């Protein structure tokens, strides 16, 4: 007789838990060993019950699903986690996989796919978009590429001119800018003339609005 897969269900919605439990229990190879209604309980039960698989809703009270997943990974638990989600957010999928999730199942496909997903995961496969993943490295590469922020368009401005734009939007005067960069006010004026010409704006207010609308301002990490 095939060994059974012990499953823990973590979802804050009781109706969801009952539905999934009943559906899974009709499969003789699956045994639902526990249910958790929030992330904290999920962690506690995973530690005490040592299930083979944790079905983890990402949006739960107390400890959110993603945080619970992080803790599971940090705790070196053998449990394989399958994430349940209402929609595919590529950034979230990437983060979940990076945190050690073995599968992602959409809630509207849970009844149809979950048992198959559990079997695939127990065989060492990953599960995404309703099927086993053959090449996880390629999937991670694709997801990383799809979720990377678009490069900042600079409209031909030099690095120094972009810095000047940043200070203009902060309300700095030419004198402030000159002082900040250790250059003369004349040089600041030349930078501004070049910036106005390149962007087709006529004054500092238009420049500030252009910068805001076109994502010209530096990000906190300096990118």
């Amino acid at each position, binding site marked *: 007789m095939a060994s059974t897969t012990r499953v823990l269900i973590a*979802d*804050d*919605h*009781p*109706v*969801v838990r*009952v*539905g*999934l439990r*009943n*559906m899974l*229990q*009709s499969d003789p190879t699956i045994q639902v060993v526990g249910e958790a209604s929030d992330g904290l309980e999920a962690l506690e039960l995973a530690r005490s019950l040592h299930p083979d698989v944790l079905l983890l*809703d990402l*949006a739960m009270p107390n400890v959110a699903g993603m945080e619970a997943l992080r803790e599971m990974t940090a705790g070196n638990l053998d449990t394989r986690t399958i994430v349940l989600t*209402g*929609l595919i957010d590529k950034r979230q999928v990437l983060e979940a996989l990076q945190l050690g999730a073995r599968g992602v199942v*959409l*809630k*509207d496909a*849970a*009844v*149809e796919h979950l048992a198959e997903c559990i079997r695939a995961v127990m065989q060492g496969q990953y599960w995404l978009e309703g099927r086993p993943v053959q090449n996880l490295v390629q999937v991670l590469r694709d997801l990383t590429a799809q979720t990377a922020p678009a490069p900042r368009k600079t409209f031909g401005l030099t690095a120094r001119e972009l810095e000047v734009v940043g200070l203009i939007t902060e309300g700095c005067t030419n004198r402030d800018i000159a002082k900040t960069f250790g250059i003369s006010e004349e040089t600041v004026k030349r930078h501004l003339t070049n910036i106005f010409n390149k962007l087709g704006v006529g004054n500092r207010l238009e420049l500030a609005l252009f910068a805001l609308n076109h994502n010209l301002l530096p990000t906190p990490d300096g990118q």
Partner: protein
Amino acid sequence: MPETETSLAPAVFDQLQKAMATNKAGFTELYRDFLADAWHTLRELREAVQQQRIEDARDKAHYLKSSCLVLGAREVARQATRIEELARASAAIKEIEVEPIADALCDVQAELAERLGSGVLPAGKTAA
């Protein structure tokens, strides 16, 4: 609604029904609990919208969406998602915008009553 379209995703309903074939009463109870919970959550969502408690409205819409997705109530889930997205964008939500959820839930309830009998209707009723 066109005759060919159903309020419940057939694949989900049929598979769950098959899975619970030996527990027909439990199957009806599952959908009865679903309906009772959905109407209750809808009432809470309406209150949140009336009082413009946008974060609450987002949470209630999300909660409602969750069970609807799993149990196959696609249109209710779609309408709840619309409200959740409005709330996430911090947009003001008009009370009338919640009503398509009630309409969709009425359709689901009618279909369930037709398929499973009146025993699926929650006690004390329900709708709007």
